């Protein structure tokens, strides 16, 4: 190994090193430092010990935002997985216009969340929204999709499913294509039904995809921001206050930088923990 080549190696990675030092390593350390301080950016920083953490443990809004995330995930993940897997299984067969269907399902994925949110805000409208109009034409009651506290978060979860499901269809399709055809043929000879094949052959093989979809959806759920920001502002009665929206409010409405950093830090730890649990639990369940 020549010396000049070693130098060139370091030169090649130097932008990355500089970037990660400034925008990842330093911020991680600084956020820990900030969590022991109170600071509104303008006046001098004040050391407050653990009081940010004490405040966080009793913070009704933060707990509420976590509960809201749970509500979101409780609806979003099962909905997402069942629709995505169902459509992927259908698309994996000999189907005409397959490219068209796949393309249609994927359309919301590429569009900005802002577009989807503005659009669905109208569809969810109480008096004039298309969805309530449809319900009424079927003789059903109107629903306060975004105005009823018990419906608002589920409504956002449904919208998020609509936005993302196309991506997960593609991921499941990739997974399904890795199922060996010979397995189906062999089991069919032994008289296995379609359902039995699905449960005992397809599902185990696409288990890694399932974990991936679950983890990506979970991270997405903890990252909700633009949806409540545009649609509800976190309301009604804080029922759609997401964790990121709450951090944003603490940081950029009240300029509680120390507390906002503490929230971000704790939230990040919670996300890492949840993802870790999902990964180990599901992987151990594998037959």
């Amino acid at each position, binding site marked *: 190994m020549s010396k000049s080549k070693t130098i060139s190696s370091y030169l090649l990675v130097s932008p990355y090193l500089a970037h990660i030092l400034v925008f990842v390593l*330093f911020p991680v350390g600084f956020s820990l430092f900030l969590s022991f301080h109170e600071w509104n950016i303008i006046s001098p920083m004040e050391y407050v010990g653990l009081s940010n953490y004490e405040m966080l443990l009793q913070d009704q809004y933060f707990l509420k935002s976590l509960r809201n995330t749970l509500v979101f995930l409780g609806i979003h993940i099962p909905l997402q997985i069942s629709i995505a897997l169902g459509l992927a299984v259908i698309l994996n067969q000999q189907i005409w216009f397959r490219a068209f269907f796949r393309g249609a399902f994927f359309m919301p994925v590429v569009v900005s969340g802002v577009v989807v949110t503005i659009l669905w805000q109208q569809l969810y409208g109480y008096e004039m929204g298309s969805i309530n109009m449809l319900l009424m034409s079927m003789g059903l009651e109107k629903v306060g999709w975004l105005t009823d506290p018990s419906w608002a978060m589920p409504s956002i979860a449904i919208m998020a499913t609509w936005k993302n499901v196309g991506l997960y269809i593609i991921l499941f399709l990739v997974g399904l294509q890795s199922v060996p055809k010979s397995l189906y043929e062999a089991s069919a000879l032994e008289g296995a039904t379609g359902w039995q094949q699905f449960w005992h052959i397809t599902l185990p093989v696409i288990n890694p995809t399932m974990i991936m979809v679950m983890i990506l959806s979970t991270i997405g759920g903890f990252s909700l921001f633009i949806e409540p920001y545009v649609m509800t502002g976190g309301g009604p009665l804080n029922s759609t206050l997401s964790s990121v929206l709450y951090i944003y409010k603490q940081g950029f409405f009240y300029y509680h930088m120390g507390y906002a950093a503490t929230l971000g830090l704790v939230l990040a730890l919670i996300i890492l923990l949840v993802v870790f649990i999902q990964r180990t639990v599901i992987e151990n369940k594998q037959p």
Partner: protein
Amino acid sequence: MKKLLFYLLLSLFAFAFLYPFLWMVSASLSEERSITHVTLWPVSFTLDHYIKLFQSIPISGAFLNSIFVATLVTFGVLVFSSMAGYALARHRFKGRNLLFYFLLFTMTLPFQLTLIPNYILMVQFGWTNSFAALIIPGLLNAFAILLFRQHFLSIPQDLIDAARIDGCNELRILFQVLWPVSVPTLITVGIITFMTTWNDVLWPIIVIREEKLMTMPQLVTLFAVGGRSMGQIGMKLASATLLAMPIIIAYLIFQKHFIQSMAASGQKE
């Protein structure tokens, strides 16, 4: 019989995925009072909402800002991430494995962790209200490096050796020998980066307050949330339509690439 059921189900879902977009476009072209009657075609065609929109917010400027920011970020990511990816894949140097594991580790860090400190960094650098805040933090990303590394691992050593014998330096090898044989990876990284940058809202909202510097999604968001749309559904939908158009057009042209790229981006977990 089963097939028929499948087609019915697929068509139903396809309708549910496409109808809202069609409704959005047609409602944005209808008079305010008739928007709710709209089915698929505008009931009373008008360009009013678009005209008023252009008069009330600098949306064409925001469009250019978004193009500028997303293009520079994409270019930066392609150059810098391929450099790091190349070194990690084909060079032997002290600390390489450490750097690689570190890369994998940073990928798992949630953005919530660094949001506030990065904002403070922007304030300290004096970058708030400037394109620097939108561009420089995005110039590199771990996932792109990983994709490049993976791709460069598969390139035959002969190709690199031949270039070295010809006296090429490492940068020339990367950009003149490896890039031309890496077009699919370049496209994948390019599409993902351009799309995420184009669609990002949270970061711009935090670091940009001056209207003439805003990106398009930011401007449209603040317009929809703030009082200036005056509750006019038509104008909101017009702004959303304009925001969606460039990406949808790009998607319709490069559909296959979009789907492949996004499928690759899902693999990162």
